[in-house]
């Protein structure tokens, strides 16, 4: 019941977020047509604005974007808006005028999802074992070493790691390609660049969770029963200790799947992360709102998934 309610509540929340994003990009000065080649005359610009309905009142533009409402023709007859979000149409991109926003997302999203999923796998695959191991070896040298590595990982920005990896592994040793998105080998350096910060973050959360759980009384009970240390850590402690990582992983996945400007920029990858930044710089209004909606929807779904997993892993958590 709790989850059904959450799913139903998503629609008004997304509506609010889209309204906020729509209003926000309009507040910023400048418009979509004053960055590239300046329109030849004010008339052309006026026509362009009229073509994309930018001359209408803001509220009507927003309703048109949603696809709820109608135009009146000269005879006073009503014509419902053709496209709109409710029909899965996010409108035309004002920057790349031959493409619709949905088209651009459809082209870039699979690439960003692939890269994001790889980075996610890397972050969890490295972070969870390192975090658990350092907690088990608390205050001994594997702990000090692993914890330091984790802090280091969250202290190196991606735009430092990326160029460094390129210089060492692609240019100097030629193990991997420098850039582009073609073969599996092309994905290695970008995935590591994107994932390394989050691997450090996950390791730190995992370590903290495991340290806390290992002090719990049911762990002492398990040890007293004669369970092996491996069983104590993996079977008894792990499901609870991993909870902080689980609640971090939801928003993280939403973040990773919607692309990263830095990584896509360094490695020339055709994802949608670049559009996140460029669309708001270019005032490509429909693009911005489309991307915000995509991100917010993903985030809401992921947070829901997190809570589902949570109630599975922690028997104390009950949603009524």
């Amino acid at each position, binding site marked *: 019941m709790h989850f059904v309610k959450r799913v139903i509540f998503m629609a008004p*929340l997304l509506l*609010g*977020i889209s309204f*906020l*994003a729509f209003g*926000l*990009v309009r*507040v*910023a*000065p*400048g418009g979509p047509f004053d960055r590239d080649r300046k329109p030849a005359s004010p008339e052309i610009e006026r026509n362009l604005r009229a073509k994309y309905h930018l001359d209408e009142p803001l509220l009507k533009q927003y309703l048109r974007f949603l696809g709820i409402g109608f135009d009146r023709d000269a005879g006073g007859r009503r014509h419902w808006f053709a496209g709109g979000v409710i029909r899965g149409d996010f409108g035309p991109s004002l920057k790349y005028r031959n493409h619709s926003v949905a088209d651009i997302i459809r082209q870039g999203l699979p690439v960003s999802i692939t890269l994001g999923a790889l980075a996610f796998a890397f972050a969890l695959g490295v972070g969870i074992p390192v975090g658990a191991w350092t907690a088990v070896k608390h205050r001994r040298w594997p702990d000090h070493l692993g914890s*330091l590595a984790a*802090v*280091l990982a*969250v*202290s*190196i*920005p991606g*735009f*430092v790691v*990326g*160029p*460094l990896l*390129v*210089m060492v592994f692609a*240019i*100097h040793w030629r193990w991997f390609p*420098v850039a582009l998105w073609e073969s599996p080998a092309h994905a290695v350096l970008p995935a590591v660049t994107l994932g390394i910060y989050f691997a450090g973050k996950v390791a730190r959360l995992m370590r903290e969770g495991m340290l806390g759980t290992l002090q719990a009384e049911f762990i002492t009970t398990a040890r007293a029963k004669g369970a092996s240390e491996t069983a104590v850590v993996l079977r008894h402690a792990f499901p609870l200790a991993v909870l902080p990582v689980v609640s971090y992983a939801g928003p993280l996945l939403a973040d990773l799947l*919607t692309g990263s*400007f*830095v990584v896509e920029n*360094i490695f020339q990858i055709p994802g949608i992360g670049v559009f*996140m*930044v460029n669309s*708001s*710089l270019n005032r490509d209004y429909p693009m*911005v709102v489309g*991307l*915000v909606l995509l*991100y*917010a929807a993903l*985030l*809401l779904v992921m947070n829901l998934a997190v809570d589902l997993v949570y109630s599975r892993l922690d028997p104390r958590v009950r949603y009524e």
Partner: protein
Amino acid sequence: MSEHPHPLPATPGASPEPDAAAQPSLDLRPASAVRSPGQKAWDRFQKNRLALGAGVFLIGALALVLVWPAISPYQPEALSDAQFQPPGANHWFGTDLHGRDLLARVFSGARVSLLVGAVGAGVSLFIGVLWGAAAGYLGGRWDSLLMRTVDVLYSLPSIIFVIVLITTLEGLLKNWLKQAIGIELGDSVRLFLLFAGLGAVSWLTMARIVRGQVLSLRARAFVEASRGLGASHARILLRHILPNVFGVVLAYLTLTVPTVVLYESFLSYLGLGIQPPQASLGSLIAEGAGLINPIRIYWWLIVFPGAFLTALLLALNLFGDGLRDAWDPRSKP
């Protein structure tokens, strides 16, 4: 709770009570020293050598970065014919495309980055504490309203928010400065925009933390007692609740500084932050990354600013971790 951020530890044996030795406890500190939570935290912090080392490094780096312009033979923005010199006796960090001394540029960039980090974190502190305290203290409908706002802002991609905020403010300031004072937009205005933009996106977590703390403190007996004695809301909030949130806020604040520094360098990397010829660590790295090519590697243009930024962030993180552990009552000394 101590009001002082860094209360000095009472020197052992300064004023021992006569019966201190009679106690069977193994605790050798004088019994007179009833240690405030702040003093206990300082004790714990001092035992954390890594965090202490990070603190010393930060102070040293700060001093070096501030003093360097006075003793450096090169100005960070002075051009020369010595382009792309590798690190050597004349230029310890080498030179860049325009023959500028990289060491001077890295240090001046670090100055900007640290300034933005500190002020940005301060802005986030101000908004976050006010917002969170209001939500936690008022409770009920106000609480839901304030915290749902935070939830919605969380679900906007922060980069879009920052870009819109910075460009909007820039537009407003440009007009206002021209009309009111008649001057053009300068470098310092850029800095101000960064402060505002970064502070505005980094207060959300702070608000959540403060709200949680205030919520639990509000129900405590000493607050009840104060209310019973007829204290005003302002007095309860300022005198009783906020001082108790201090430790957690301080610890989280030191972890906000590296986040803001990182974000600033990211914005400068995008070209939205500090404008050339001024430099921040992020824009220096962006310049270096832009010059990567398979024929000739100017590694120093990436390695030195990157390493300095990483070292600063590492020290800030370690220092913040140490503070958090020291203030966290669950962590054992």
